[in-house]
C-alpha cells in the first residue's frame, strides 16, 4: 500500500521535472539551437537523467520493501564497480575483490532484508574488515599491502555499508508512523538532492568564493549557503509528512544537507587525487552512480541513526 503522502511528494517532484524540462527546452531553442552550448546540453542531459532516476525510485517504492532493497543493492553494485576501478590492487587481491561483489554485497542486503540490525550494522566494519585482508595476505604479495586493503575497505564502507542505510530506514519502528517508512527514504533523498541541485543553481547564479579551490571548482560558499537553506526551508515545509515537528524537521534537514555537502567534497578529493572528473559515465550529464549518490551516501547513516535514536522503538 503506497502512503498518500508519498504520492503527493512524487507528484510534486513530477511537477518540478515538467517545469525543468520546459525551461530546458526553452533554453535549448534560445541558446543552443544547433546543440553547441555545452552548459545547456549538459543541463538537459541532467534533467532527462533525473526523469529516469525518479521513475526507477517510484517503481521501487510501489514494489515495496523488496523493490527498494533490490534497487539499492544494484546501486551499491554499480557504485562499487566505479570505486574499485580506481583503487590500488593487484593480482593477489583477486579473491577479496570477488568476495566484495559476490559475497559481502549480497550478505549485507540479505541481513538488511531480514531486519537483523545487530548484524548489518557491524558486518562490514567488523567481519569484512578483519577477514578480507586475510584473504589478500594468503596470496603472499606484500607490495602496497596496507594501501590495498585500506582502499578496498573504504570502497566497502562507502558503496555498500553507507548506501545500505537508505533502505534500512524501512525497518525503523516509529509509533504512529507505521506503514509510512518509505516516506523517510523519499524525504531524505528529496531534501539532499534538492540541496545538491540548489547548490548548483545558486552557485551558477551568485557563486564567487570557492570553499575548497583545490578540491572542486564548482563548490562555492554562496552555493552552499543558498542550497542548504533552500532545501532546509522546503524540507521544513514538508514536516507534516514526517514524524518530525517543524523545528525537528529543520534540524534534520540542516544535518543531512551539510553532511551531503561534505560527502560531495570528500568524494571530490578522491577524484582529484586519481585525476578524474567523474566516477563513471552511465548517468548521462551527471557522470557515474557515485557522482549522483555521494551526498546521499554521507547523509544516510547519520539520518538513520539520529531517527532511530530519537524516534524509533527498535
Amino acid at each position, binding site marked *: 500500500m503506497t502512503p498518500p503522502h508519498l504520492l503527493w511528494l512524487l507528484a510534486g517532484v513530477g511537477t518540478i521535472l515538467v517545469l525543468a524540462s520546459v525551461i530546458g527546452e526553452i533554453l535549448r531553442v534560445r541558446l543552443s539551437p544547433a546543440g553547441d552550448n555545452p552548459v545547456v546540453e549538459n543541463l538537459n542531459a541532467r534533467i532527462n537523467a533525473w526523469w529516469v532516476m525518479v521513475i526507477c525510485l517510484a517503481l521501487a517504492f510501489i514494489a515495496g520493501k523488496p523493490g527498494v532493497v533490490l534497487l539499492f543493492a544494484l546501486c551499491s*553494485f*554499480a557504485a*562499487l*564497480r*566505479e570505486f*574499485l*576501478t580506481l583503487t590500488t*590492487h593487484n*593480482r593477489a587481491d*583477486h579473491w577479496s*575483490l*570477488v568476495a566484495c*561483489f*559476490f559475497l559481502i554485497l549480497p550478505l549485507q542486503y540479505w541481513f538488511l532484508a531480514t531486519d537483523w540490525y545487530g548484524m548489518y550494522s557491524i558486518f562490514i566494519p567488523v567481519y569484512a574488515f578483519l577477514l578480507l585482508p586475510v584473504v589478500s595476505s594468503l596470496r603472499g604479495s606484500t607490495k602496497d599491502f596496507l594501501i590495498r586493503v585500506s582502499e578496498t575497505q573504504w570502497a566497502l564502507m562507502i558503496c555498500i555499508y553507507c548506501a545500505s542505510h537508505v533502505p534500512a530506514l524501512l525497518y525503523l519502528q516509529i509509533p504512529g508512523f507505521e506503514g509510512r517508512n518509505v516516506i523517510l527514504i523519499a524525504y531524505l533523498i528529496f531534501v539532499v538532492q534538492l540541496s545538491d541541485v540548489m547548490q548548483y543553481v545558486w552557485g551558477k547564479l551568485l557563486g564567487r568564493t570557492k570553499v575548497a579551490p583545490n578540491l572542486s571548482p564548482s563548490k562555492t560558499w554562496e552555493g552552499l549557503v543558498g542550497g542548504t537553506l533552500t532545501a532546509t526551508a522546503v524540507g521544513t515545509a514538508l514536516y507534516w509528512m514526517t514524524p518530525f515537528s517543524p523545528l525537528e524537521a529543520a534540524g534534520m534537514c540542516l544535518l543531512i544537507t551539510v553532511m551531503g555537502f561534505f560527502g560531495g567534497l570528500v568524494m571530490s578529493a578522491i577524484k582529484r587525487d586519481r585525476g578524474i572528473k567523474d566516477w*563513471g*559515465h*552511465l548517468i548521462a550529464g551527471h557522470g557515474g552512480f557515485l557522482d549522483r549518490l555521494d551526498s546521499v551516501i554521507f547523509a544516510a547513516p547519520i539520518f538513520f541513526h539520529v531517527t532511530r535514536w530519537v524516534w524509533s522503538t527498535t
Partner: protein
Amino acid sequence: MSPVLRAFAARVTGLAISTFARFMTAPRAIWLGIEPIPAQRIYFANHSSNGDFVLLWTALPAPLRRRTRPVAALDYWLTSPLRSFIGREVFNAVLIDRRPEARAEDPVAQMVAALDQGSSLIIFPEGQRNSSDAALLPFKSGLYHLAKSRPGVDLVPVWIANLNRVMPKGEVIPVPLICTLTFGAPLHVEPDETKDTFLARASRALLELKAPT
C-alpha cells in the same frame, strides 16, 4: 536442430554474452580520432584477455556490430561443440589457423575474402594474449599484408584498458570493473612504406591511445 532455431539460439546467446560483458565491465567507448559511423573498417586492438573481442564487439553501436566479424584462432574455437557454436554462429568469426604447417587456407586470404563480402573485422595483431610486462608484443605481419591488399579500408586502432584486471590470466571468476575502449584515428599503409615501418607505426598509434591526453 533446425537452422532457424540455431540462428535464434545464436542471437539469444550473443545477447546474453554481451549483457554479461556490460554487467561486468560497463564498457565505455571513447571515439577519439574517428566517429562511430557504419563504414567498413578493420579494428585492431591490444590483446590481454579472452574477453577482448567480446568487449570490443559489445562496445560497437548495434548497426556497426552486425557487420563486424572477429578474427579468431581456429585451434582454440573448434576444440568443443560449444566453442564452435559461439565462435562460428554467435560471433560469425573468421577462423584462421595459427599453425603454418597444418593450415589449408592462407589467413590473409580468408580475411580479405571477409572484407570483400562487406564485413568489418576485429583483429589482434599481437597474435596471442599478452601476459608479459610490456604494454604490447611485437605485431605479426598479417596486419601489413591485409592493409596492403585492401588499402582503401580504414585501420582503426583500439586500446582496451582494464580488462586484464577484470579477469587476470588463470582466474576463474571475473571481478566487475569499468573498462574503457579508446578508438583512435584511422591508418592506411603508404605506397612505399616497408613492412617494418608500417608495423612500428601501427603499434605506436595503438600505444598512444593508452594514456590519451
